[in-house]
């Protein structure tokens, strides 16, 4: 890298020969958008100690719908803002129209609670109220102190309105463009489902008694008092308007202290992992990731290599299922049902895996001679979701991306819509649906929890006939509990969870390849999953990182990131004033001094302009800046002392008495006394002490110079 073109720089480099291979890199922190002005001084004052420590808080009990907070270098960074929705399975479904099943189900009376808050449906007990969700834990940290929220994918953004609109959060939210848009679809759909089926009564008494907290044997750790009703559409829009768009590999400057870079995680459209780095430390947050390449841009593993700390969550929710066979299973069941004149229901989210399902199923139907069978996609955001997916070329896998250059739509569903194979409607009661609707067919419809959305009506409609089939593809909800209130059912139930995120085997391999010092994972990843307690292979291998730290919901842990160094910049004229001395083989030392400028956490040392200093005696200017100082090193052995005495002699100092003692704490000391002068010199391994009476300064300087010539210094 010989790009040293200029004389001065040459001079500098020849002086500091060791520099020659020095890689002069720019401080990446200097780049990118400056964040809004903040009062660093105040923050520094308050958090003097925080600056040098890294803490990690876990605010969610679900590693897939995660929410963590990292405090580091005066910053509070929230990683993801996932919404735990499993709670809604405790509630009675909200059918679109008066349902004979759910409006007539009997009260379940308990000695402690008998006023109709609880109802029996099927064989289980449900709460008769508007469903509630579990947002990130409050009261562990002060949300107003959060500086930045980083969203890794749209599934992990659904609790955002709780934070931005219902707390005094003042920071910035970063997400990729697809994440923002698709999260908007999810949120708008969710709010519309709840809003179209209002419940007059709000049950709350059941929360007081722990025996009602987990009626359906769910994996819920948190107290229902922490559950919340859903936000409004207005809050969704306000919340999303706070999100700033970030692209893959875009370096985002966070108050000069940190550089954040979203890198592709391969899991879904726009999904990202985050690399947080200062000039010297690197922390990676690995959220939902996938090594498969179906739609999204492939995972960028290189960017995650050699980190100090990796935080990993969002692994597969169906670890015990062999994913290879699933798609075949699914297609087979669809074809069988359709051949039987039955209709297939597929509960789904409005984006994601369904794009693949449209593609795969349409092919499968063609191959099976069922090309005339229509597919319906029912969602309030169906049209937007389909249209939007086809303008995201930059975020797609290369196969899909290359189609755009033709130009062709990257996803085939645009063609399916054009050819009337795939039809979309906002609702099953939307205009035109009944006219267009033909059976048998395949219906994609939300919500996968089966507690709200048009699917609730469709299950009631098709549930009694064994010709029909319902296929569960979303692994977010346990399907047995989801179906529980609809019993008795005759329709076929098939569980084909399509899970693209990393399984344990892939995760172990990934981490091994990435070589990290510290791995931080949820505690549940160190034990076999509840569904398959004997599968010892479904855990994160203890050996893959030098140190593994686990956490659970509500934990605050210290991360062992020992910052020892920081990057500073030195102006060339300061560097030029440096005179390095070789003190050991390959080690050169030199005192360096200057004026420190700290701006946006970037440290810069510039030279001192001596003329501008006032209020300092002239002869002390050098002293103030420690300019031209030097430090002596080495020991004075007998030979050196003899040399020193010789030198003194040359200066005319001859009347000397030498003695050796070890009276000072046993340290061997040579005492030299100038007999007629009030001066004595103590020389030991540690140093030399010159005692000198009044008015002997000239003599002292002579002695000093003689001594300095016998010692090494830098």
């Amino acid at each position, binding site marked *: 890298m*010989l790009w040293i073109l*200029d004389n001065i*720089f040459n001079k500098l480099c020849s002086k*500091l020969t*060791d*520099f020659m291979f*020095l890689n*002069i890199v*720019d401080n990446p922190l200097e780049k990118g*958008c*400056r964040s809004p002005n903040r009062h660093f001084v105040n923050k520094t004052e308050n958090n*003097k100690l925080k600056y*040098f420590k890294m803490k990690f808080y876990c605010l969610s009990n679900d590693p897939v719908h995660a929410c963590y907070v990292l405090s580091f270098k005066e910053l509070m960074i929230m990683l993801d803002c996932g919404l735990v929705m499993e709670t809604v399975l405790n509630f009675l479904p909200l059918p679109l129209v008066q349902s004979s099943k759910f409006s007539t189900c009997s009260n379940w009376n308990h000695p402690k609670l008998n006023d109709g808050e609880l109802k029996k449906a099927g064989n289980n007990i449900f709460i008769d109220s508007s469903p509630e969700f579990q947002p990130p834990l409050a009261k562990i940290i002060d949300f107003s102190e959060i500086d930045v929220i980083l969203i890794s994918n749209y599934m992990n953004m659904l609790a955002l309105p709780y934070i931005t609109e219902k707390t005094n959060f003042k920071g910035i939210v970063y997400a990729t*463009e697809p994440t923002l848009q698709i999260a908007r679809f999810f949120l708008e759909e969710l709010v519309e489902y709840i809003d179209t089926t209002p419940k007059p009564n709000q049950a709350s008494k059941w929360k007081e008694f722990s025996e009602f907290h987990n009626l359906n044997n769910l994996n819920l750790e948190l107290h229902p008092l922490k559950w919340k009703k859903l936000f409004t559409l207005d809050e969704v829009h306000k919340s999303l308007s706070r999100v700033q768009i*970030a692209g893959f*590999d*875009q370096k985002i400057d966070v108050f000069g202290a940190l550089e954040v870079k979203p890198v592709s995680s391969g899991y879904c459209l726009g999904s990202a992992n985050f690399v947080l780095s200062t000039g*010297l430390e690197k922390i990676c947050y690995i959220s939902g990731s996938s090594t498969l390449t179906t739609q999204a841009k492939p995972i960028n593993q290189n960017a995650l290599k050699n980190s100090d700390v990796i935080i990993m969550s969002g692994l597969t929710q169906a670890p015990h299922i062999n994913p290879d066979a699933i798609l075949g299973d699914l297609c087979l069941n669809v074809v069988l049902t359709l051949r039987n004149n039955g209709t297939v229901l597929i509960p789904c989210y409005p984006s994601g895996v369904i794009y693949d399902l449209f593609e795969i199923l349409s092919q499968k139907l063609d191959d099976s001679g069922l090309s005339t069978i229509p597919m319906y996609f029912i969602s309030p955001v169906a049209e937007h979701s389909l249209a939007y997916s086809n*303008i995201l*070329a*930059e975020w797609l896998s290369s196969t899909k991306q290359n189609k755009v250059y033709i130009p062709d*739509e990257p996803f085939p569903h645009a063609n399916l819509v054009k050819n009337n194979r795939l039809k979309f409607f906002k609702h099953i009661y939307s205009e035109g649906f009944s006219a267009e609707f033909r059976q048998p067919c395949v219906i994609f419809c939300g919500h996968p929890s089966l507690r709200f959305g048009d699917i609730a009506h469709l299950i009631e409609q098709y549930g009694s006939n064994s010709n029909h089939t319902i296929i569960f593809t979303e692994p977010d909800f346990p399907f047995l509990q989801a179906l529980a209130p609809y019993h008795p059912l005759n329709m076929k139930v098939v569980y084909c969870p399509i899970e693209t995120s990393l399984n344990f085997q892939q995760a172990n391999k990934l981490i091994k390849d990435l070589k990290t010092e510290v791995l931080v994972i949820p505690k549940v990843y160190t034990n076999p999953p509840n569904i398959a307690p004997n599968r010892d292979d479904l855990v994160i291998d203890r050996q893959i990182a030098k140190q593994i730290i686990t956490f659970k919901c509500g934990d605050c842990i210290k991360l062992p990131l020992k910052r020892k*160094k920081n*990057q*500073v*910049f*030195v*102006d060339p004229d300061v560097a030029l004033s440096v005179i390095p001395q070789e*003190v*050991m083989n*390959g*080690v050169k*030392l*030199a*005192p*360096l*001094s*200057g*004026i*420190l400028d700290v701006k946006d956490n970037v440290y810069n040392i510039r030279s001192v302009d001596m003329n501008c*200093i006032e209020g300092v*005696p002239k*002869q*002390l200017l050098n*002293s103030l*800046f*420690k300019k031209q*100082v030097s*430090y*002596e090193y080495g020991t004075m052995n007998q030979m050196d002392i003899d040399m020193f005495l010789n030198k003194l002699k040359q200066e005319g100092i001859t009347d000397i008495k030498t003695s050796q003692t070890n009276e000072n704490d046993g340290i061997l000391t040579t005492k030299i006394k100038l007999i007629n002068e009030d001066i004595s010199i103590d020389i030991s391994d*540690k*140093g030399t*002490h010159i*005692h000198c*009476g*009044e008015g*002997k300064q000239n003599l*002292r300087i002579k002695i000093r110079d003689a001594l*300095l010539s016998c*010692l090494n210094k830098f």
Partner: protein
Amino acid sequence: MPDIKVTCLGAGQDVGRSCILLSMGGKNIMLDCGMHMGFNDERRFPDFSYVALEGPLTTYIDCVIISHFHLDHCGALPYMTEIVGYTGPIYMTHPTKAIAPILLEDMRKVAVERKGESNFFTTQMIKDCMKKVTAVTLHQSVMVDNDMEIKAYYAGHVLGAAMFWIRVGNQSVVYTGDYNMTPDRHLGAAMIDKCKPDLLITESTYATTIRDSKRCRETDFLKKVHECVAKGGKVLIPVFALGRAQELCILLETYWERMNLKYPIYFALGLTEKANNYYKMFITWTNQKIRKTFVQRNMFDFKHIKPFDRGYIDNPGSMVVFATPGMLHAGLSLQIFKKWAPNENNMVIMPGYCVQGTVGHKILGGAKKIEFENRQVVEVKMAVEYMSFSAHADAKGIMQLIANCEPRNVLLVHGEAAKMEFLKDKIREEFKIDCFSPANGETCVIRTPLRIPIECSLNLIKKELKAYNAQPPDPKRRRYFNGILAMKDGKLILMDLPEVWKEFNGINRHVIKFSSLIKLETASTNFQIVEEIHSLIKDRLSAWEVKIVDGQSIIIESVVVKLNEENADKNLCVSWESQDEDLGRYILGLLQTIS
């Protein structure tokens, strides 16, 4: 200080054939690789022999960056990669990568099939060339190699147009390509952050123009078109297939709709639908409004605009025709022009800049007769209108961009020499920074400051921070910083002195300490003496931290003034270490004067 060198192979005090060589930090970067529309000989391509007299360029050029798909910015790329020879990295945005090959193919056809030129690249060469291209997204930071990083910003000029920030080591440059600082009907305005590059290379097509408001120009355009067709005339609008054409189509479409007009509008290009498809697919690159409404209504589905057929040229009655290419230098637009020019009822509207040598340039200059290669002479009786719809930044926009990104130097390209001169003065005056405008073949050397990054022990920083925070807040206070710079294994670390002895076991410090006694003859109490000395030293040495320890010692750096009491005699022992010689001597002298 290290330099940045810029040499224009094209676009130096000139518009057309943009090709700028940039050297910094030992890397050579080619910015754009365009062709000149005004020439038919070898001058249309940049003079690659400047880079290497013969043979491939790969060893001499580290990367090529293409700002947008206009041929004067990418037209020579296949020639360079396939005929001259270059296999290194090429970067452009996704839309540019999608659209550029179409325009290149279009031009190739005109040049080879219509003009019968040889020594031109082939269709296969365009394909091979595009295979070498790496597509980038906006704001993505791409590491070209360990030292070089590039990042694209939105430029707004045409779909996919980008400005590029390029960093090598500590030096950085922004190359704007062509850009537009005011949003138009389908694109947004250029945007850049305060990236403070060492050098900003900006286009300056409209260096002296401050364009009137967009709306006025649009009304003007519509009025002229309407008047012409109303009296039975034919309107020819030469355009390039993608870019301005789409904006003017949107404009006419909405006007026709609003005024309920029935005159036919034709878009003379098989590409129309394809072109609009690109716009639809890359809708994320268009402006907010189009992006928001694209699901309900695709702005690029035109009701009134129909494909053109060559046979329509001689049709009677009024019509509006969009035809390519935009500068009337070849192809269908020229063919139509030849037919329509002699009729004074007709009109040609040139919506963009025309480079020298093209028919467009000639008629804009007022030429009434055009002579062609085959001795054919065409009389120009039709009305010739120039409407500046080229989406370039005007003088105000250029100044705004400079203000936004705060460069240390500015270099003007892609403009006319006289206009550049004017803008140069303005930039120097307003921003107090240096400004250059090299001619083609001339090399500009720009000096840049250097900052050396080193690692610094956190202890040292903590110590300084503690001392700084202990003082009363004063924003003007200087923060003195010192430590020991250690060089080992090619690494630089700034350490605190005690750390040096710990880190390097082989060496021990040898402290040289001096002590002197001063006898005191005073009746004051110990407390008074210490206080008095303390305030005296503090007063004289306000820049230092002066501490009292144990009620009997005063400490400034390594200087210790200690009050001793022996048999009712009081004395001061002043001691210091050799590095504080000046300070120690000063304090000793100070105390001697008062004793």
